C-alpha cells in the first residue's frame, strides 16, 4: 500500500510573515491516478504545489515523493506546467525546449530526440525554428506542455492545463494526459473547471484557507452526498420551485434547471407540486450533486462559519 503512494504530504504548514498559507495539510496521492487539487483563489494551492516541487520548504511537516523525502534530484522526476505560462520569448522554440529538458537532467542527445518527437506529436515541427514570441497563445501553451513532460516524469503537475486551448487542442492534451496515466504517470491537476475534474480525476482534495475541507475518492465523495439533486426540464410557471421546506437551492442553466433538495426532502413532493400547477415536465432526474455545487457549498459553508 505504501509503495503505491506517489506523493505523500504529511502535516505540512507554511507561513509568510503572519499569513498562514497552508495549515497542517496532509495529502496522499496514489501512484498512477489523476488527483484534483481544488480550492478557491488564494486557498494555498500554489503554495502546496510549490512545496511539492521543492521551490519552497515547508515550515512544518514533511513531503515524500515515490517513497523518499524530497531531495534536489527529485526535481528531475517531476514535471510542471505552471498556471502563469512562461518561456523565453525571444528564443527559438526548439532551443528553449532543449534548455529546459537539460535542466531536467536529460543529456543533449536524448533531449534533442525527445523534443523532436514531441514537436511532431503536437504538430509544432514547422515552428521549431521560430521564436516563441511569434507563436499563438495556444501554441505557446503546447510548447510549455512539452517542457513539462519531455523528461517522462513519474509525477506531473498541471495547473489549469486547458486554458487558452481550442477544443481540438484541448482534446489532444487530454488524450496525452490519459495516455500518460495509462503508462503509470501520476497527474496532479489543479483547476477551477469542475466539469474537467469530474471527467478526469480519480481523487480530489478541496482546500480552503490553507486547510483541507474535503478529500478522498471522487466517486465516494459524490455518493456520500446521495442523490439529493433534481435535474429538470420543464415548460410553464416556475412557482412550484418556491417551496423553502423542500428546496435548498435552485440553479438555472437555461434549458436545464438543477434543484438541490433539503435533507430528507422527498423529490416526489416537488413533482406533485409541478403537476398540480399544470407545469409540463420534460425531464425529471434524481442525480448526485455536481462537484460545482459541492465546491460552492463547502467553501461558502466554511466562509460563513
Amino acid at each position, binding site marked *: 500500500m505504501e509503495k503505491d503512494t506517489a506523493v505523500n504530504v504529511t502535516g505540512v504548514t507554511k507561513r509568510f510573515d503572519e499569513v498562514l498559507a497552508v495549515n497542517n495539510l496532509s495529502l496522499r496521492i496514489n501512484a498512477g491516478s489523476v488527483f484534483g487539487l481544488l480550492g478557491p483563489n488564494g486557498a494555498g494551492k500554489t503554495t502546496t504545489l*510549490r512545496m511539492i516541487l521543492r*521551490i519552497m520548504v515547508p*515550515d512544518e511537516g514533511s513531503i515524500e515523493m515515490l517513497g523518499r523525502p524530497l531531495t534536489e534530484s527529485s*526535481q528531475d522526476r517531476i514535471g510542471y506546467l505552471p498556471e*502563469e505560462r*512562461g518561456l*523565453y520569448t*525571444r528564443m527559438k522554440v526548439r532551443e528553449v525546449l532543449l*534548455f529546459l529538458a537539460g*535542466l531536467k537532467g536529460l543529456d543533449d542527445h536524448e533531449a534533442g530526440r525527445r523534443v523532436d518527437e514531441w514537436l511532431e506529436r503536437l504538430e509544432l515541427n514547422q515552428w521549431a525554428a521560430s521564436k516563441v514570441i511569434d507563436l499563438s497563445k495556444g501554441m505557446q501553451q503546447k510548447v510549455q506542455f512539452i517542457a513539462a513532460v519531455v523528461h517522462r516524469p513519474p509525477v506531473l503537475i498541471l495547473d489549469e492545463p486547458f486554458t487558452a486551448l481550442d477544443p481540438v487542442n484541448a482534446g489532444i492534451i487530454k488524450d496525452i494526459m490519459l495516455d500518460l496515466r495509462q503508462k503509470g504517470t501520476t497527474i496532479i491537476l489543479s483547476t477551477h473547471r469542475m466539469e474537467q475534474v469530474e471527467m478526469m480525476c480519480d481523487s480530489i482534495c478541496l482546500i480552503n484557507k490553507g486547510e483541507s475541507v474535503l478529500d478522498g475518492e471522487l466517486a465516494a465523495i459524490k455518493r456520500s452526498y446521495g442523490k439529493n439533486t433534481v435535474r429538470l426540464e420543464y415548460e410553464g410557471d416556475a412557482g412550484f420551485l418556491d417551496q423553502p421546506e423542500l428546496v435548498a437551492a435552485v440553479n438555472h442553466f437555461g434549458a436545464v434547471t438543477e434543484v438541490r433538495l433539503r435533507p430528507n426532502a422527498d423529490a416526489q413532493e416537488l413533482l406533485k407540486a409541478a403537476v398540480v400547477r399544470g407545469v409540463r415536465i420534460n425531464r425529471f432526474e434524481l442525480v448526485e450533486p455536481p462537484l460545482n455545487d459541492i465546491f460552492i457549498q463547502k467553501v461558502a459553508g466554511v466562509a460563513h462559519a
Partner: protein
Amino acid sequence: MHKFWLVMKREYVTRVRTKGFIFSTIIVPVLTVGILVLQIVTATRQAGRTLNIAVLDEDGSLADSVIKGLDGKLNNGQPEFHIVQTLERPPAGTEENLRTQVLNGQLDAFLVLPAKITGGKDSAEYHTRNPGEVTISSELSHAVSDAVIAQRLHARGVDVRDVAQVVEEVDLKVIKVGTHGETEEKGQTIVIGIVVAMLLYTTLIIYGVATMRAVMEEKTTRVIEILVASTRPFYLLAGKILGVAAVGLTQYAIWVTVGALVTVYGAAMASIVHAGAFPALHLSGLMLGSTLIFFFAGYLLYASLYAAVGAMVSSDQEAQQAQMPVTMLVVAAVVLFNIILRDPNSPTSVALSMVPFFAPILMLLRIALQTPPLWQIALCLAILGLTTAGLVLLAARIYRVGILMYGKRPSLAELAKWVKYT
C-alpha cells in the same frame, strides 16, 4: 553543477548572438577612435584652403618681413596664405576699397599694419569675414610680432639671430619613475588611467544593468517558475551573473585584440612612411592584468546588487527607481576621480580606493597613475573580495524570495525579512 553550466551557457550564447552585442562591440571602438582622430585633425589644422589676403602697410617698412613669416603650409602642401597685393603708404580710402573686395569675395581678408606699430603705440588689424579661425589669427599675430621685434632690435643695432639664441626656451621633460625603470611622460599616463577607468565605469553599468534586466526578464515572463522547479536558485543567479560576465570579457578580448592589431599595424605603417611616431598607448602587463581583475571583481559586486534589484521589482518603472542607489555608487566613483588625479597617494586617495564600491575604478586609476605599494593593492582586493562574497550571498537570499513575489516593491524592512526566510 551541470545545471549551473547550462544556465550560464544559455545566458552567454543568447546574448552574444544578439544584434545589440555585435553592434556595441563594433560601435564603441569605432566611436572612440573616430573621436580621437577628429580631435587630432581639428587640433592640427583648421583651414582647408589657401586664403587670399592683402597687406596694407602704412609705414612701408614692415610688409616684406611679415609676409616672409606667413609661410605656413596646408596639409595638401599648398601655402596657407596667398598675398594678392601689398600696399605701402596707401592713399586715403584704400581700406574702404579693400573692405568692398572682402565683401564681394575677391579677397578673403586684409591685414593692416599701422605706422606707429613699431613704437608699440598701436595694434595690427586683421579684417576678415570669418574671425573665428583661431589658428589663423595666432599665426598672423606671431608673424607680425616677429617682424616688429626684428625691426626694433635692428633699430638698436642688435642681431636678431643672436637674440633668438639667447631667449631660446629650455624644454622640461617629465619622467615617470616606476619600479621597472623610467619612462618619459608625455601625458600618456593620465590618458591611460582615465581611459581604463572610464571603460570600467561604462562596462560596470552596462553589464550590471544587463544582469538586472536578465533577472527581470525571467521574472516578468514567468519562466522563473519552471526554472526554480528544476534547479537551485543559487545556480540560476550564479549562472546568470557569470554568463553576462563572460559576455563582457568576450567583448574586452575582442577590443584588446583589435586594439593590439591596430597598434602593430599603425606602428608598421608609420615606420614605412616616416610620418613620425605612431601615438601608441602602451598598456603594461600590470595594467592589463589589473583591469581584468578589477573588472571581474567590480562586476561581481555590482552585478549581484543589480540582480537583487531585478529580483525585487516587477516592472520597468520600478526598476528605474530601484536601481538608482546602485548606479549612484558607480557614478560617485567617477565623481571622486579628481581627488585621485590631484594626488594618487594622499591619505584621502588611499582611503577612498579602499572603499569596496569605489575600489574597482579608483584603485585601477591609482595603479595607472603611480603604482601604489603592493600591500595596498592586496588589502584593497581582500576588502573587495570579502564584500563581494557577502553581497553575492545576500543577493542570493533576496533573489530566491524576490523572483516569486509579484506586486508592490518591498520596503527595506520587508527585504530584511526576505533575507531571513528559510
